[in-house]
């Protein structure tokens, strides 16, 4: 594994409650063009393309094949898709580049939550025998986790509210964020103990990243965000088997990715619910000196299937513009932080 691979470009849509005037490909295509324009590459120059999305969100079978129209896949390109967040598509692209089969990769993902009810859609990823027949929605499961965290004495409702307020205040500086403003009221309970302000906004959006290996990365980007390590780990699917107040899979992924070798200055955590940020900070040992979610995080914009890739993109973009030298990016999938991916990104010394 002696090939250096970097994130060299990142683009995202403005995330909005609804993009009903656009099809999926109409929503995704401008982001693909923007990320290519940042590097001067054309689609035909890309060695490998990988995307992440879920047909369940908008209820459109094989929507990813239609979205591929936005890439320009003729003559046939080397291409793959994961029915997961785009962070896992990036993982596949990273391994493809490691093999030496390609020098550049285009990774994109998108989520249209507006056509359906994402709280109910996400119940379909649960254990189909013992859990899915009860239709426990995503906020209910996150609320069980938050209550467990409160019972354990690791947080309380005012502390959770502060996480939400800080995220939305930081989102003021993010032109793509859907919800911004530190003075937005925390709102009523959705599923107690979680209030509106503890939950992510429901919205549509897309994101794209370009990866490049070695010297190619230096040609395409003034300050590449080198991926020093990525790893992803999963926990048991049974919620009652897990300790919901901890995230051993996130900690292990971070360890395998090399996150604990040296301190990071920035962390982009994919914590759609406030309590999950508290859990991840503890699991990853992030102190107050680490800038957490300067983008506002998933509490400011949560296009499902893209929000994890956006964490990697946001962390990389901070390195590109010199605001960070070493950053941790995290993505999650499944209920209550079931599966976690951690990437460690670094810029060349200045």
């Amino acid at each position, binding site marked *: 594994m002696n090939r250096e691979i970097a994130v060299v470009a990142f683009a995202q849509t403005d995330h909005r409650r609804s993009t009903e005037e656009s099809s999926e490909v109409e929503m995704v295509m401008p982001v693909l063009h923007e990320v290519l324009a940042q590097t001067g590459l054309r689609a035909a120059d890309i060695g490998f393309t990988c995307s992440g999305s879920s047909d369940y969100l908008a209820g459109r079978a094989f929507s990813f094949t239609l979205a591929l129209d936005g890439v320009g896949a003729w003559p046939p390109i080397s291409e793959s898709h994961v029915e997961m967040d785009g962070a896992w598509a990036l993982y596949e692209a990273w391994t493809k580049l490691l093999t030496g089969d390609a020098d550049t990769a285009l990774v994109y993902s998108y989520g249209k939550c507006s056509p359906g009810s994402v709280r109910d859609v996400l119940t379909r990823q649960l254990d189909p025998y*013992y859990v899915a027949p009860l239709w426990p929605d995503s906020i209910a499961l996150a609320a069980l986790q938050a209550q467990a965290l409160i019972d354990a004495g690791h947080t309380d409702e005012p502390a959770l509210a502060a996480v939400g307020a800080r995220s939305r205040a930081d989102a003021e500086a993010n032109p793509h964020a859907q919800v911004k403003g530190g003075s937005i009221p925390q709102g009523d309970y959705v599923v107690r103990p979680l209030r509106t302000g503890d939950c992510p906004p429901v919205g549509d959006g897309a994101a794209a990243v370009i990866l490049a290996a070695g010297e190619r990365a230096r040609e395409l980007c003034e300050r590449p965000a080198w991926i020093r390590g990525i790893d992803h780990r999963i926990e048991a699917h049974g919620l009652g088997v897990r300790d919901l107040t901890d995230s051993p899979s996130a900690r292990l992924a971070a360890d395998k990715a090399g996150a604990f070798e040296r301190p990071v200055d920035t962390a982009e955590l994919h914590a759609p619910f406030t309590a999950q940020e508290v859990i991840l900070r503890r699991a990853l040992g992030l102190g107050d000196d680490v800038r957490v979610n300067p983008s506002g995080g998933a509490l400011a914009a949560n296009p499902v299937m893209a929000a994890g890739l956006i964490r990697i993109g946001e962390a990389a973009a901070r390195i590109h513009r010199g605001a960070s030298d070493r950053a941790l990016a995290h993505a999650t999938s499944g209920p209550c932080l079931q599966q976690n991916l951690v990437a460690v990104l670094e810029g060349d010394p200045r």
Partner: protein
Amino acid sequence: MPEVLRAPLVVEFPFTRSLGPVQSAFLTGLRERVVLGVRTGDGRTLVPPVEYDPVTAEEIRDLVEVAPTGTVTTWAWNHEPRRGQPLDTPFAWALVRLDGADTALLHALDAPGPAAVRTGMRVRIRWAAERTGAITDIACFEPYEGGAGQPTGHTGAFDEPLSGIVAPARLDYTYSPGRAQSAYIHALSEQRTVGERCPSCRKVYVPPRGACPTCGVATAEQVEVGPRGTVTTFCIVNIKAKNLDIEVPYVYAHIALDGADLALHARIGGVPYDQVRMGLRVEPVWTEGARYPDHYRPAGEPDADYDTYKELL
């Protein structure tokens, strides 16, 4: 910009799932008001039970009965129950560790309000009146003052054990077709077929999807095509589709409308099925009030020369 089109879309499936021996025993047990767990190699009892040890991945088959009473390990108050959830009045979601188990089971807890619920409270199973062998055979949990209930000493062997379950699933969406397809549908309602041209390769796509799949750029220039076209290829349908009032056999064809660079597909009528051929010239047949052509029929022209449509096959 024309109005955004919207239509309800329901995706509904009855998923038929087979059960492993441990899942079968657990769900059959619920039918018989018996709760079974499974013992792991290190002596823990998992409820609900699984086929493989979540830590070691070892196959586990050692069934053990636990009590119908237990303790709440965490909870969340759900004041607005959603479709499909266990209770239609406000309730608490709860993870409950049954007496005798080392792990917790997710279900609803029927309580008068959040003030009546706390972690550590004692609860017991309220059984559903009608039980089929499903997690919903537990209607919910209810508050319970008392010690551990007594297991009956069940071995986990049942007459007529379940071998599978049918799990219905329904999701409701509001479908919007997007800019390009909306324009296409709007034009169709005026009995015009309008495609879009790629600014790069100049191909005209019908129906348009907003992007040229070859060039990866947006199509925007609208181009009216047809109304007549050429059958490029076809098939003969011999099996009647459910809910479709068309006599078989009939012909379904790819039709290259005049001016289009992509064939669309439609039914061919007004001609015996065995007389449809490649190159047949056809025209749309509109029915009163319809928003799209009912079918295409022969236009009464000489057949098109193969060379005029071979690139569209």
